[in-house]
């Protein structure tokens, strides 16, 4: 049985659909990419799973199964506890994800203490272990630092450590390297892969960067307008995408080893076809 299973998930803001009948599965220990351009809804899926959808946005249909439990049938308090113990988030922007007014150490250990009921000493010991694991030198000193005193790469490592703190079985990584320099990105990707392998965690990796997908992920789901266009293995995709839109996306991604290839923006015809697909889907639901 898959660890995470989304069945026909529908999310709306008012009458506007944001996710249209999204279905996907993540097995234990699997690394799956959620790919799409901005506005495709990939972040929304992560938020729906973790229960962090903004107030105006609501799940209007479908199911989310986390380790066999249907999240939609649980009471809010039970849902929060279940999600908190089994899942975690690596956010996009390390600067805004950390409270600039508090030292870094307590921000990680508090999660263990407040949400999972650990003892303060145990929590702090675990944090130091984790900081070692993410290759942060002098973890005791870093724990007492404020976020702005650390580099972007370091902050992201801390957020990664924080995500793995309670040994979650699923991590949602929401564009975790988008804000980083390319050299730092490679280090962080390597770190995420190593941690994921070591802890056996399933990883749902939200990104718009097909390059990153090809290096890190085993399977992928391509989204447009909140609708799943393609669901396949990374191997198969890069040998030849099935959907016209995904193929166009690939063609538009610059490859420096191929400088003479014309950069093709996604053709109008392809966009129109996808929009028609979506309109058709909406019609059938009425």
């Amino acid at each position, binding site marked *: 049985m898959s660890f995470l299973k989304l069945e026909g998930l529908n999310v709306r803001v008012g009458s506007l659909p944001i996710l249209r009948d999204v279905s996907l599965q993540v097995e234990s220990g699997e690394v799956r990419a959620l790919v799409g*351009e*901005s*506005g*495709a809804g990939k972040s929304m899926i992560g938020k729906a799973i973790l229960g962090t959808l903004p107030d105006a946005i609501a799940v209007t249909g479908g199911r989310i199964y986390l380790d066999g439990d249907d999240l939609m049938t649980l009471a809010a308090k039970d849902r929060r506890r279940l999600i908190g113990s089994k899942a975690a988030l690596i956010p996009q922007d390390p600067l805004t994800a950390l409270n600039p007014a508090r030292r870094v150490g307590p921000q990680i250990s508090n999660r263990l203490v407040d949400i999972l009921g650990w003892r303060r000493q145990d929590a702090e010991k675990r944090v130091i272990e984790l900081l070692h694991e993410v290759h942060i030198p002098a973890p005791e000193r870093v724990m007492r630092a404020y976020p702005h005193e650390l580099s972007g790469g370091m902050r992201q490592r801390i957020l990664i450590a924080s995500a793995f703190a309670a040994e979650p079985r699923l991590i949602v990584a929401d564009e975790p390297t988008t804000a980083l320099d390319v050299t730092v990105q490679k280090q962080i990707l390597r770190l995420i892969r190593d941690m994921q392998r070591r802890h056996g965690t399933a990883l749902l990796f939200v990104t718009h960067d097909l390059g990153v997908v090809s290096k890190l992920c085993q399977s992928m789901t391509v989204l*447009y*307008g909140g609708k799943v266009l393609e669901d396949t293995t990374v191997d198969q995709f890069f040998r030849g995408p099935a959907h016209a839109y995904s193929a166009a996306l690939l063609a538009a991604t610059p490859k420096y080893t191929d400088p003479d290839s014309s950069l093709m923006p996604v053709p109008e015809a392809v*966009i129109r076809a996808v*929009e028609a697909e979506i309109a058709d889907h909406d019609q059938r639901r009425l």
Partner: protein
Amino acid sequence: MAEGRMAVKRRINPRLWLSAGWLFILVVAALAAPLLAPQDPLAQDLFASRLPPLWQMGAEPGYPLGSDSLGRDVLSRILYGARIALLVALIAGTCTCILGAGLGLIAGYYRGWPDMVISRFIDIWMAFPPVLFAILLIAVMGTGLTSIIVAIVVIDWTRFARVIRAEAMSQGAMDYVASAKVAGRARFGIMLREILPNVLPTIIVLLTLEMGIAVIVEAILSFVNLSISTDDPTWGSMIAEGRATIHQSWWVLVFPLITLFLTVLSFSQLGEGLKDHFDPVLR
């Protein structure tokens, strides 16, 4: 996929309509006071003293909201009082706005030493307790409409300056300002053409707020008899008089109080309503 924003439906804003409506009625009533007022607001008639409002026993036609202990018609006095209130609101509000927003804009956009000078000035100025300052000012200048207006401007310009300075600073850091600089526009031109339009919504909201404040300040000052020196009726003085006779003739206090309340509320809600109206465009 179009990232373009959908056209935001302009919400029919009840707040905006109600407050603008009341203020519109007030302005018309104040302008047409000579036509609308049933009596001369200053005319005393001891035979018509303490008449109750129209729907009560013992009322007389010609005094729809009743009369005070000197026989003066409450409605007429409210209408003429509106003239004072609105005059103060308009003039004091506008002058405070121009002075405060102007200095704030210069300080926030130019930075450097103009900012240092103006900011220190604001800090020092705000250290003076406003009420005492007002009373002191009036003691020096004497009572009268001019004094009130000057007092309000002098005390409250810092409210504008601080907020507009912050806004000008944040707009000044935007790339569209850098773009204008690269194009070769002079600093003063950038301030007027690029920054001011973006700061204008905030200025307008503060302006309406300031008008409401001006009305209250005038009412307070006339309550303590520091306002205009003549016998012209003001809402504040009516409230002061009405307080003394509240048990015998409650209407002398209550009606000007309600009018004052509605007017100040309308000014502040007008500001809020205008802000909501501008926001979708900005975001």
